[in-house]
């Protein structure tokens, strides 16, 4: 099979797809995982439509599809969107999402965005896609008066800005804005790029400024220009289908477009991948280390094969630098497997880049599960790269949450396959993200120490932890909403709030917020906990309590509670109320409030429970960490700091 981007070559081919769709019982409890499984194949537009119809049957049967996240997406654009809607719904399943789609009437972009009573505004989507291309923007060519062309860029940007502002105000939605693909119709030829006032330069200018306008706006950028360029502009633009059906681009590219869009939706919901698990033999180097030995494996400059594997290592290293955690799972003797990492001069990856190294003869599903446990990360954040189709099939079968890319026969294309699959899509980046790979590694060292340490408190004191409390603020906002949208396990209520909501909480009276950071002798863990309390009379109800699982078993929960109680006391609050809402993922915190000394008030049949704590009768404890507070008004004296 040839490697063809529009066919999503990182996905396995679908066999007997129609039959498998028909075999799904829409009302069954396993329907959601079967939907995801079906979506994880290379599907054309008709197969996506079939899957979308099946999803519709599940919804009609009242199936809650509990393991899927939900996104409400409004589509607004200047072309035909009807082909897109089912493709997005089906593709969303691949990314763990049930996407509800509302299609704005054809050509009614401005009316829908500007009118608070419009269908879109009333529907209250989470996100609104502005699928607008050069045909609907006042981008003009004016080579005799380039100023006019520049004005056209300004007008185009302000048009988009008006839509974004109004969608936020009227619909409460964040916008997804698209860059505009160039039009391969140069007036002079190459000279167009050098001549002010050409359409090509207007489009470039528009794209650059549109990208610059994203910043902390809370809106998302969909770089369609880059996608179109990657596919090829000649392929992308399809004037026959535009003239005939107002299709904005070659409809055969719809599955690829939908996958790129759904990556953004998944990132918005905190569902991006975080870990890359690598096989060794014939994945990181050519040959088998156990058979071919250090001199026999192909790696490094000088041979085509060696360079191909070098490019795989470059890809992994580049991902690690932006915070993706690397791990190894290989069927090997550990000593042999480590040899290239220690002694091969061309190895780019070293032992200290790998957070978790599993070389043994266990099956790979077991190994990957062990890696997930060691790193305290969910399997749905894993990508597994292996040249061996049998290993890939095994992992897909036993660990369907793990993304397992198909690989072409030629190792030269391994790296480009991973890049094309876009597993690690992110919609924001902070330097804290970049350090994440180091954090997980430090964590692995910590855990080893823990095994050795006799008494837990002694070990915790040896970590020299500093816990830092502050209310929500502007610099922390992106990370706060990121945590709110991606934390599943240590999350008492799993309530999701957008960046806009978080920004509102900063200002709203009657809301108490905490962002918590933790540093220790191994490094800075960054923000590890978010708290939102809502006041009602003399009661604070904890609306949101979530924590990073990285800092479990370190008495951080107790320190956070102590802070809530301290602040509650200052605010004249008598009672703190906690609530646990069970989900598929948060069973680990079922006893959270009980463990912390709260009393059970009520428990529903569904497992939801409400707990209360009397502020006056809660005494301060001595905890093995130093407390630092910042940004609270009025300033609270640091009286509770222990040790």
């Amino acid at each position, binding site marked *: 099979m040839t490697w063809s981007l529009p066919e999503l070559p990182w996905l396995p081919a679908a066999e007997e797809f129609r039959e498998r769709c028909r075999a799904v019982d829409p009302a069954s409890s396993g329907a959601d995982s079967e939907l995801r499984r079906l979506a994880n194949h290379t599907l*054309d537009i008709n197969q996506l439509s079939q899957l979308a119809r099946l999803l519709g049957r599940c919804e009609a049967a009242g199936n809650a599809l509990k393991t899927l996240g939900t996104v409400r997406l409004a589509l607004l654009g200047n072309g035909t969107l009807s082909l897109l809607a089912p493709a997005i719904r089906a593709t969303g399943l691949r990314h763990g999402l049930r996407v509800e789609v509302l299609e704005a009437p054809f050509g009614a972009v401005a009316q829908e965005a500007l009118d608070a009573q419009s269908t879109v505004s009333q529907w209250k989507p989470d996100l609104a896609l502005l699928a607008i291309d050069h045909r609907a923007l006042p981008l003009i060519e004016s080579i005799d008066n380039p100023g006019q062309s520049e004005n056209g860029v300004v007008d185009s940007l302000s048009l988009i800005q008006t839509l974004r502002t109004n969608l936020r105000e009227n619909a409460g939605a964040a916008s997804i804005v698209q860059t505009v693909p160039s039009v391969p119709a140069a007036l002079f030829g190459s000279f167009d790029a050098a001549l002010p006032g050409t359409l090509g330069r207007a489009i470039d200018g528009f794209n650059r400024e549109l990208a610059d306008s994203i910043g902390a706006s809370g809106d998302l950028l969909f770089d369609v220009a880059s996608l179109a360029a990657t596919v090829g502009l000649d392929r992308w633009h399809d004037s026959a289908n535009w003239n005939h059906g107002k299709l904005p681009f070659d409809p055969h590219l719809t599955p690829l477009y939908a996958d790129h869009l759904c990556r953004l939706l998944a990132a918005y919901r905190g569902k991006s991948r975080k870990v890359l698990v690598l096989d060794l033999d014939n994945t990181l180097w050519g040959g088998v280390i156990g058979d071919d030995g250090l001199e026999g494996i192909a790696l490094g400059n000088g041979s085509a094969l060696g360079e191909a594997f070098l490019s795989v290592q470059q890809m992994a290293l580049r991902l690690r630098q932006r915070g993706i955690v690397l791990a190894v799972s290989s069927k090997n003797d550990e000593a042999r497997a480590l040899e290239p990492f220690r002694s091969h001069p061309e190895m780019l990856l070293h032992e200290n880049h790998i957070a978790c190294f599993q070389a043994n003869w266990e099956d790979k599903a077991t190994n990957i599960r062990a890696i997930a446990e060691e790193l305290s990360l969910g399997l749905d954040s894993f990508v597994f790269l292996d040249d061996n189709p049998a290993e890939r099939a095994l992992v897909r079968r036993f660990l369907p949450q793990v993304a397992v890319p198909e690989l072409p026969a030629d190792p030269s294309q391994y790296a480009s396959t991973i890049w094309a699959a876009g597993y690690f899509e992110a919609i924001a980046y902070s330097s804290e993200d970049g350090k994440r790979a180091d954090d997980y590694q430090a964590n692995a060292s910590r855990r080893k120490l823990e095994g050795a340490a006799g008494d837990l408190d002694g070990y915790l004191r040896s970590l020299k932890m500093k816990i830092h409390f502050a209310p929500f603020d502007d610099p922390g906002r992106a990370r706060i909403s990121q945590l709110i949208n991606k934390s599943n396990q240590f999350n008492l209520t799993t309530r999701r709030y957008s960046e806009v909501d978080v920004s509102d909480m900063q200002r709203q009276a009657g809301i108490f917020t905490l962002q918590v950071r933790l540093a220790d002798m191994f490094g800075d863990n960054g923000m590890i906990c978010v708290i939102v309390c809502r006041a009602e009379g003399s009661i604070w109800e904890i609306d949101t309590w979530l924590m990073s699982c990285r800092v479990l078993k370190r008495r951080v929960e107790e320190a956070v509670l102590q802070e809530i109680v301290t602040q509650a006391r200052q605010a004249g609050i008598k009672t703190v109320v906690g609530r646990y809402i069970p989900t598929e993922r948060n069973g680990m915190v079922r006893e959270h409030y009980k463990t912390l000394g709260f009393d059970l008030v009520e428990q529903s049949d569904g497992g939801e429970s409400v707990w209360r704590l009397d502020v006056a009768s809660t005494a301060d404890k001595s905890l093995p960490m130093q407390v630092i507070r910042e940004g609270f008004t009025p300033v609270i004296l640091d009286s509770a700091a222990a040790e």
Partner: protein
Amino acid sequence: MGRGEVYERLKKIFLDVFDSETEIGDRTTAADVEGWDSLSHIRLILAVEKEFRVRFAASEVGMLKNVGELVGLITAKAGS
């Protein structure tokens, strides 16, 4: 490629596009197949293009009156 073979492959496409078991023949028109509207017509053409590795011009797609004409177009294109 003979019309018989085209029909065999076209039947599978109709199943995928329309979820419909309707028997198709030369005289079948959009009115005979449930769900055959302008939108699913685009999806039908896309599926045909993919299956038979052909490309249709917009004008050709617009002129088709029944399945027989579609099959004629496919044999003409795929045969050459």
